């Protein structure tokens, strides 16, 4: 086991940091604070173009698909660094959809979809969840029926994040209702502007916008089906493993704990300096240790990925650990700041522009999203330790 970055990896990190120093401008930070990811044609769009020019949307893909041919460790370093700076980098289209197209797609799928993803021009909303298919995702009902050389799609997706600003859906559909539920699922790429697609906004507690998206006799070419028909369950479980790995990156947590240490050493409004309290220091020390561990878990998963396996048990472990850690960080911040911790970003008096107030509301999502921690604990026990399935 080698815990040190090699010369090439250090150089890469320098390059990523130099890029962020240059392009994370006060204007971009202000726009993100005001509009989150929602502003079109603003600073964020320009920032994304810069990332695209670097080729970083396809950094770990083979060059034949428009990628840079770098490895998962490079991707992990980049995503961590972006997280640490608090700016959006390569999203799930890049880190989870594209690798599955590469692994399982037809030659036409690859030729058609990978180059625009690498250029940052094709961005997918991930359409898995439905009103009646949450944790039990395989019971999804959105139906696709082949009519000549077109798929005709009917149904709806909920929690369809990013639909309002993406170009396509990575849509999970039922193509065969007459076989066991895991065996009749396929994945189809649907342009978001196809006739019959409509989007209803849903606002979450964190302020994050997600959607319910409806598909009403939506027609797409038969060749938009990824890989083979009825084999989609394998593709999405693979994609979900990658999603967990990417989403549970601890870059933002490193920054949060560093910020929290700094805040604890400053006087609060009441003049008290929290870090003088041994109990506070003890809690911060434990969080600090756990962020280091989460970072190591991320590197371990990336290392295994580099060796060609999709490390489901490792990413499940990492996901449960980091998502619960995130919640503990938010709770510690609240206890440490007291009422100051409730002030939001619209109040000048809010510590760190309300970052920890926001974190408290953001933290629950990753605990149940991308595979709930309950199901992932099942995965760890059943796949990691071969304990018997109870028929979930």
């Amino acid at each position, binding site marked *: 086991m080698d815990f040190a970055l090699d010369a090439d990896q250090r150089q890469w990190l320098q390059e990523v940091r130099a890029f962020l120093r240059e392009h994370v401008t006060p204007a971009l930070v202000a726009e993100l604070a005001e509009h989150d990811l929602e502003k079109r044609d603003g600073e964020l769009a320009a920032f994304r173009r810069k990332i695209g020019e670097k080729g970083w949307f396809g950094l770990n893909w083979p060059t034949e698909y428009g990628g840079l041919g770098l490895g998962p460790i490079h991707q992990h370093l980049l995503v961590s660094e972006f997280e640490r700076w608090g700016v959006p980098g390569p999203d799930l289209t890049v880190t989870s959809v594209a690798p599955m197209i590469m692994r399982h797609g037809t030659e036409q799928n690859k030729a058609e979809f990978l180059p625009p993803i690498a250029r940052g021009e094709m961005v997918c909303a991930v359409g898995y969840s439905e009103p009646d298919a949450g944790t039990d995702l395989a019971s999804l009902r959105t139906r696709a029926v082949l009519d000549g050389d077109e798929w005709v799609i009917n149904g709806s997706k909920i929690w369809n994040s990013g639909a309002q600003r993406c170009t396509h859906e990575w849509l999970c559909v039922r193509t065969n209702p007459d076989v066991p539920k895991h065996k009749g699922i396929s994945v189809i790429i649907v342009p978001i502007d196809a006739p019959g697609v409509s989007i209803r906004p849903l606002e979450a507690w964190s302020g994050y916008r997600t959607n319910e998206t409806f598909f009403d006799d939506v027609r797409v070419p038969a060749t938009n089906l990824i890989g083979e028909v009825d084999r989609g369950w394998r593709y999405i479980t693979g994609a979900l493993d990658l999603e967990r790995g990417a989403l549970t990156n601890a870059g933002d947590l490193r920054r949060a704990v560093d910020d929290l240490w700094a805040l604890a050493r400053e006087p609060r409004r009441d003049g008290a300096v929290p870090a003088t309290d041994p109990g506070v220091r003890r809690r911060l020390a*434990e969080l*600090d240790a756990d962020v*280091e561990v989460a970072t190591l878990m991320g590197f*371990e998963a990336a290392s295994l990925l580099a060796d060609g396996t999709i490390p489901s048990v490792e990413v499940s472990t990492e996901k*449960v650990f980091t998502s619960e850690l995130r919640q503990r960080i938010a709770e510690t911040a609240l206890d440490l700041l007291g009422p100051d911790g409730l002030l939001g970003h619209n109040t000048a008096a809010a510590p760190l522009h309300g970052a920890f107030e926001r974190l408290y509301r953001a933290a629950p999502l990753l605990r149940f999203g991308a595979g709930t921690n309950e199901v992932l604990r099942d995965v760890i026990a059943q796949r990691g330790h071969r*304990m018997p399935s109870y028929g979930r």
Partner: protein
Amino acid sequence: MKLVATEEERDLAAAMRDLFATHCPTTLVRALREPGGERFPQKLWEALVRAEVLALPFAADVGGSDGTLDDLAVVYAEAGRALCPSVVLNTIHLGLAIDALAAPDRRAARLPSLIRGDLRGTVAVASPYDATDVRPRLRAERTADGLRVTGRLDYVGDADLADAVLTTAAVETYGEPDEVLALLVDPAAPGVQLTPLPTSADDRWHEIVLDGVLVADDAVLGAVGEEELRRVALTVRALQCVDMAAGAETVIARTVAHTCSREQFGRPIGSFQAAQHLVADMHIATQAARLAARSAVFWLGRGRPGVRETAIAVLKAATAYRRVTADAHQLHGGMGYVLETDLHLWSERARRLGVEGGGVDVAAGWLA
């Protein structure tokens, strides 16, 4: 950066696992604890010497096999799984301390015999309560042919089996600052009094009281600084964390095996989600411990002071091992509570290694 075991590491682990399976069954571990029984694992010792385990982390000039601290961590993991008796690991600690602290001629004089299995012993350079506290416990005066040493050492492991205890003493020289010397104390020397401090698990800790004990010149290893002493103590602590993480993995495996064979309500108890979620939490805690421990050993082996890395390792490993053994007892029910199933042997080790040299409260203090 690559956090997967190399092929050499996997081969070494497999070889060690075989060796311990053959020579360190739990029957041996239990026999060594019997009151009045044989305390020294002769056959295991011979096998380890033959397999050059005692030579592993040392350079070829003293007869070592030029391995790394990372290699030693691989050995420690297997030792932890198999509950390897402490006299073996304490002797390796002695070797590491001599290697790091002794003047070249003393190092050359002592390490070859340790590597051959002819010198056994232990290290007492830090507080048993806090590995970063390396203030000397003994005072010494210079004599014509060595030192005259006085003071008390606490919780010295296997002192009754040791040929040498490596410790430090402060030497006062009039008009000059105190000098700290590393030295080897022979527990059988005149003026040394050993008092056992046995735990309920029959770990043989001792209090050693020295009253004007003569330490010959060739047992005085040289002047040492705080920094290097602390690195030795933390290296020992980090290796113990590897031991703890691997021990916890073994306990999980035993627990899973039990829950998958024991049936209640007509199905294996391991098929209940409550049981699976306990196992998942044991797994998560243990993986955290494993990564933190290996990282600490890695960075100590590359010259970092290692305080931060070892603190993290202790926080994760001590917590994980205790929690895993406690939950293992829960999942075993009565069958894990009776002595014949051996589970308590791991629980005892978790308890001892969790605090020896500083537990979670102390380690958190190293970080804050």
